[in-house]
């Protein structure tokens, strides 16, 4: 049974991730429509300018709520360790596909962990500032300087979020096997050993051995 793949993400985890991803694209594209005139044409995807303005905050709030689901599922795997700092110091090697000499990685590498916390901070800033600038329901509770700060913070956090997700998506394209992990859930043993050695050791320890399963060698 040495070649049996490993389940990296359960069906619920995968579903949660892709709901956030879809909502990110909807909130992101509608947000970019209002971000710069060069992208205003994106508002046509949502039924025009007013519909973009109406829908964007709801999509954003939905994204935040489902993102919280991901946070609850994965936060405990995302604390940075000493190994992570060493891994980050060798980030140039990682980028050259020469990660062999670096410390072994747990469920997530340092880049993934930093992405997790960056996304969480962005989401929180986007939520709070988004409420402040949500003219239809909430802006009348806030002073003009708060609203101006909110508009600026919203744009900055949105920018950082989009940049982070560009990195996230590219990492998926670059590291073969990782998209599959999030699509159907399974990764090969070789993949787990290569990219997440500590996690691999952990999950294989927990697997029942052949003798426990009553299979004679």
């Amino acid at each position, binding site marked *: 049974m*040495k*070649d049996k793949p490993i389940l990296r993400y359960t069906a619920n985890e995968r579903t949660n991730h892709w709901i956030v991803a879809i909502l990110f694209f909807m909130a992101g594209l509608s947000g970019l*429509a*209002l*971000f*710069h*005139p*060069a*992208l*205003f044409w994106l*508002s046509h995807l949502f039924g*025009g*300018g*007013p519909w*973009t*303005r*109406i829908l964007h905050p709801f999509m954003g709030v939905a994204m935040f709520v489902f993102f919280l689901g991901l946070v609850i599922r994965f936060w405990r795997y995302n604390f940075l360790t000493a190994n992570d700092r060493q891994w980050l110091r060798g980030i140039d090697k990682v*980028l*050259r*596909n020469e990660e062999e000499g670096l410390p072994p990685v747990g469920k997530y590498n340092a880049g993934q962990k930093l992405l997790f916390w960056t996304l969480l901070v962005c989401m929180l800033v986007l939520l709070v500032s988004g409420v402040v*600038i949500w*003219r*239809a329901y909430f*802006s009348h509770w806030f002073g*003009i*300087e708060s*609203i*101006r*700060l909110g*508009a*600026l913070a919203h*744009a900055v956090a949105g*920018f950082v979020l*989009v*940049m982070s997700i*560009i*990195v996230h*998506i*590219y990492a998926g*394209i*670059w*590291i*073969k*096997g990782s998209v599959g992990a999030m699509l159907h859930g399974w990764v*090969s*043993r*070789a*993949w787990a*050993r*290569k*990219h997440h050695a500590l996690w691999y050791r952990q999950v294989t320890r927990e697997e029942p051995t052949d003798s426990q399963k009553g299979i004679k060698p």
Partner: protein
Amino acid sequence: MASQDIIARSATTTPPPSIRQLEEVAKLIDTTKCIGCKACQVACSEWNELRDEVGHNHGTYDNPQDLSAESWTLMRFTEHENEAGNLEWLIRKDGCMHCAEPGCLKACPSPGAIIKHANGIVDFNQDHCIGCGYCITGCPFNIPRISQKDHKAYKCTLCSDRVAVGLEPACVKTCPTGAIVFGSKEDMKTHAAERIVDLKSRGFDQAGLYDPDGVGGTHVMYVLHHADQPSLYAGLPNQPVISPLVGLWKGVTKPLALLAMGAAVLAGFFHYVRVGPNRVEEDEHPSAPDTSVHQVDPAVHVYDPGKPGTPGEERP
């Protein structure tokens, strides 16, 4: 007004039509002549077919209490006690200042929802308005209001429809004391200068014209008795500017951010092209590798030096 006369347009990055030169207009509001009769408010509602809800008395003469999507101008009353201990009743007709550098236009994300005409009038095109309220965020004077009925932004148009056909704005037409006058910006400045000389001769040493540089000048100007303290007049900003937060939000940062996003995508693409994907060698697992030979070229003869003189083989 012809479309050639639009010299600035919200959320538009290419140059506007600029062939025709139109004289800049201005409305001059002389607070020293205003008696607070609110005829201008009524005329504004009449001409623009606005019928705001009848509100409540809030214990001041301000009525309605604030500007709204259906009240585009408003007398604001201030009771000011001067140094001599005398009461001065400062009345200011509030409304859009028609800035030369409009903060609303800078903030607006919808192309063409806010335009500036060559004569200086800043106009909202509700047909293109998406109702986001960014114009409110950008305005240094707290003027635009979003209607709760249609979620569009509204404010004083300086009666652009009247001005386009050579008429003065409705409020100017109706003002019984001549406190509101309208004409070319240059003429209005000259007129204001005469008024200021008169006011100074009557003891208002600080009388002056309010045409703030911080927003490039305005096309609605005030003659103030106390031009050194505009904020006396119901919080008229002393030095109005587009907030630096709005400048940062809508300034050069946006195209740079857009560039950075594009660059990030390109960086990923070229990383893939130059470094390539990170694949797992699936056969690097520790189980014994399959070393059996499946196909043997008959021309290849295996020679094992550890076993000299393999039978049936001639040593060279």
